[in-house]
């Protein structure tokens, strides 16, 4: 055992050493220590249930949530989507695809300066409304956009 570890453990005890190491940035941020997975939400089969699982039932329609996605996606396995929140102070962005078997696509929790912006690509088996739900300043906002799919992306 090297001297650094020996001193760390001697000073703090095992639990304390982990705290010190984490504070020193020696431990990588681990997905396992983040918020628990919204398992129910990802298993929801209806858009309504998926929205409820992220407390978006009363979301306010807002033109300040901008979804950039193709009107027609020629390849249903690789549909680009970009969401920009013009509402400041976005704390989270959720993406939902109405006609997918499991509508909840992804959930992004933002902190420490991360902007209300996300860019990714998703799969859809058929033309569908895509929704972005943004939580900011204690309120929940939603925007929708229709994406037509000419060749389905679920492999069916």
């Amino acid at each position, binding site marked *: 055992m090297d001297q650094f570890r020996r001193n760390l453990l001697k000073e703090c005890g095992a639990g304390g050493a982990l705290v010190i190491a984490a504070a020193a940035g020696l431990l990588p941020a681990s997905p396992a220590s983040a918020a628990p997975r919204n398992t129910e939400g990802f298993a929801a089969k209806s858009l309504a249930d998926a929205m409820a699982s992220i407390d978006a039932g009363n979301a306010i329609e807002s033109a300040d949530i901008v979804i950039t996605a193709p009107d027609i996606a020629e390849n249903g396995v690789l*549909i680009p989507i970009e969401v920009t929140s013009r509402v400041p102070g976005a704390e989270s962005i959720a993406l939902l695809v109405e006609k997918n078997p499991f509508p909840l696509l992804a959930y992004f929790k933002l902190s420490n300066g991360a902007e209300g912006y996300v860019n990714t690509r*998703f799969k859809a088996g058929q033309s569908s409304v895509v929704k972005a739900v943004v939580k900011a300043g204690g309120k929940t906002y939603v925007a929708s956009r229709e994406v037509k799919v000419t060749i389905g992306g679920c492999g069916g």
Partner: protein
Amino acid sequence: MAASMKIRARMVDGTAQVVVLIMHPMETGQRKDPATGQAYPAHFIQSVTATVDGRTVMEAQWGPAISKNPLLGFRVRGAKAGDKVVISWEDNKGEKDRAEATIA
């Protein structure tokens, strides 16, 4: 380690713009092998964490409908050139990877 990821991180108009490309099958568990009729088992990234200069900026939970070889773009205010970006992911099989880049 880090072999699955390419990270590009740069300052644009005072904001750090980060784009990560992760090599991963993102198999939904719905796609069937045409020869056997059996579904390929689900194998997809469930969580992604990003830190900048040691602070967590994004914690993402993904479902299997994120595309294969997923792309993730995000932006961070208050970051600066030289800051370290660390991206880590874990999938439904417990496989993980982690990569770092410096903001240009």
